């Protein structure tokens, strides 16, 4: 199908589609999205678009059936929607937790990684590459690649490698090669650029598994569709358990894959408020001179631009150079955000909020000691939000627990140690690391 053809039918089609299918035709979300990539990648993008349409949208060869079966058997889906008794009491509202932390690998990331690696297999690809920041997407991809017997190379910034050694080890245990990226600051955005470079040379036999709803079309829609299982389940579970829909749905947002996964099936439920919680870092102020944003609140504080293949909201300086973002949670530490979220924020459908490092850490300790669930630091932002804004929420709130905190124990020790966290346990035996 030629793109010119697609474009002519676009407006009408999109208008008729429910919100959770937005962008499928052409990767456009209002002004956001698109395919801003080097020409050399275009054939791969087109091949992928074709495969996405056939296998994912049309379930050709039973792709979606196999995907769902593997998500269940290998991944452990469905994940529960659990009532959080003690938080419900604390906030005098019904708080429900969507337990993506129970997914194999410990985060929602596997939904996408498994989908893409399986798709690569259906496409006849022989090799997987991926980038990773915190290492969560990398470990999920490495697991999926081992499970499906695909050779896999993961690019990871050198600085991230040093911050996330257990995740590096996990990837290697799963048989993946981990390639350190030494350019720039050695974090996620450099790793993405590097992976794109690899892909530009190897498109014929290689699939690039992007880790969030970012990048050129069809990645944002495809990753969303793979992650949408979260809200598909949560919506059904909420109806079963509570007899109705939630008043509010809360999810943290880095690139935004767990966010859109959690929102997708609620987008058309206009009475359900959707809250995307970004990392407010240490402050929302930006240091233009140094090119540093001490946060990664691109929905809240970013401006329109083009990054990594898509038009979206970015943290950038006035020249358009991408800023160094910062967050206590490396998985939220990204200067961009998925174009669909940028669109939904502009439309007023999604409420963007920023929660700072301190509040996130308190959220981390709060969920750990009141509910017996140690969340990822990314996830902890959602609980920081709950604490600060519960009075603005309705009577039934679903919060996505996007991941578990095992990967963050060292960071939690270090960060707790640096501040006065009111609800932290006695840390004396841990300071100085484990």
């Amino acid at each position, binding site marked *: 199908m030629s793109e010119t053809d697609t474009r002519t039918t676009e407006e009408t089609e999109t208008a008729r589609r429910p919100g959770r299918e937005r962008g499928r035709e052409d990767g456009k979300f209002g002004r956001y999205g698109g395919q801003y990539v080097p020409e050399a990648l275009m054939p791969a993008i087109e091949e992928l678009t074709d495969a996405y349409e056939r296998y994912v949208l049309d379930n050709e060869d039973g792709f979606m059936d196999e995907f769902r079966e593997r998500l269940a058997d290998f991944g452990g889906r469905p994940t529960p929607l659990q009532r959080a008794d003690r938080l419900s009491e604390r906030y005098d509202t019904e708080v429900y937790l969507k337990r993506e932390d129970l997914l194999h690998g410990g985060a929602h990331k596997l939904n996408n990684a498994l989908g893409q690696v399986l798709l690569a297999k259906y496409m006849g690809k022989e090799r997987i590459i991926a980038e990773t920041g915190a290492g969560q997407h990398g470990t999920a991809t490495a697991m999926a690649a081992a499970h499906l017997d695909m050779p896999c190379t993961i690019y990871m910034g050198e600085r991230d490698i040093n911050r996330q050694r257990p995740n590096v080890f996990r990837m290697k245990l799963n048989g993946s090669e981990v390639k350190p990226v030494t*350019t720039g600051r050695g974090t996620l955005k450099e790793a993405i650029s590097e992976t794109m470079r690899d892909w530009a040379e190897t498109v014929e036999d290689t699939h690039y598994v992007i880790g969030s709803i970012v990048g050129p079309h069809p990645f944002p829609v495809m990753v969303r569709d793979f992650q949408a299982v979260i809200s598909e389940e949560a919506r059904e579970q909420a109806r079963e358990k509570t007899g109705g829909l939630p008043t509010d749905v809360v999810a943290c947002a880095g690139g935004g894959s767990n966010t859109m996964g959690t929102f997708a099936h609620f987008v058309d439920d206009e009475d359900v408020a959707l809250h995307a919680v970004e990392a407010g870092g240490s402050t929302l102020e930006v240091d233009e001179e140094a090119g540093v944003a001490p946060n990664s609140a691109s929905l809240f504080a970013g401006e329109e631009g*083009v990054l990594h293949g898509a038009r979206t909201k970015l943290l*950038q300086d006035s020249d358009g150079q991408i800023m160094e973002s910062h967050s206590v949670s490396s998985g939220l530490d990204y200067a961009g955000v998925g174009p669909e979220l940028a669109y939904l924020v502009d439309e007023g459908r999604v409420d963007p909020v920023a929660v700072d490092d301190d509040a996130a850490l308190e959220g981390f300790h709060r969920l750990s000691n009141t509910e017996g669930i140690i969340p990822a630091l990314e996830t902890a932002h959602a609980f920081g939000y709950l604490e600060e804004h519960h009075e603005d929420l309705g009577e039934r709130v679903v919060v996505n627990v996007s991941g578990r905190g095992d990967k963050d124990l060292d960071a939690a020790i270090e960060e707790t140690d640096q501040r006065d966290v009111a609800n932290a346990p006695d840390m004396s035996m841990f300071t100085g690391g484990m």
Partner: protein
Amino acid sequence: MANSDALDAAFADGPAYVPYLVVGDPDYESSKAYVEALDRGGADVIELGLPFSEPIAEGSTIQEALVRSLDAGMTPDRFFAFAEELEVDAALVCMTYYNLIYQYGKGEGPRPFVERAAAAGIQGLVVPDLPAEEADPLREACDEFGLDLVFIVAPTTRGDRLDRMMANVSGYVYVQARLGTTGARDDVSDQTTASLDRLSGYDVPKAVGFGISTGDHAERIVAGGADGIIVGSALVDVVAEGVAADLSTAEVADRLEALSRELKGGAERGHRSRTGTVESA
């Protein structure tokens, strides 16, 4: 065929030698000396790289040059000042990423960037992350200010995509000699010949780039049908060596000029072999 006379002229007689350097690498003044050395070495068109922080289409050689330039304080405004100050005969093309172009407009799209580029004496743009599908606003601004918009054709570009691109391109088409990102290579790819064959029906100069590093390469490429050669990494390597070995600006400029002569000479030999007696490639 081209909006700019200068680009038309560059490809008018004989093969064009199109070198690329990153503006501001490793600093503003040296960089100016280097670009002028390219000109002395026979450049017909010079591609001036305006550095972006996330250069997804570049190999490591050019990426490191972009970082050196950014670290030394390069910005779009300084880039334009640089272009204005240059004293060169070659036509000037700006190569950069779309976010810088877009952001320069402060909400008014790509037009302000193009307007400023035109004022600075830039005759064309290459934007590696801007596909033809998204190029309408930039195309319009280029047309308005008489700039050419160069597209890159990959070895894999075919069919509808190729048609759409060729309908939009002007000045010259940048024929990517192989898959992958920029970077000097030792051989010349078969993919080049195939690409040139595929493009033979389109009436626009074809400049081949990606991996050309010697006069020999240049000769073979032009003998194979190219209207010009684009050389980036091989030249940026010379700058990088200068930084590493702490060479004087004059010394690096001399080397750039010498390499340029070799490349240009190779291209001319190739042209003669194609138009005159056919030498074996």
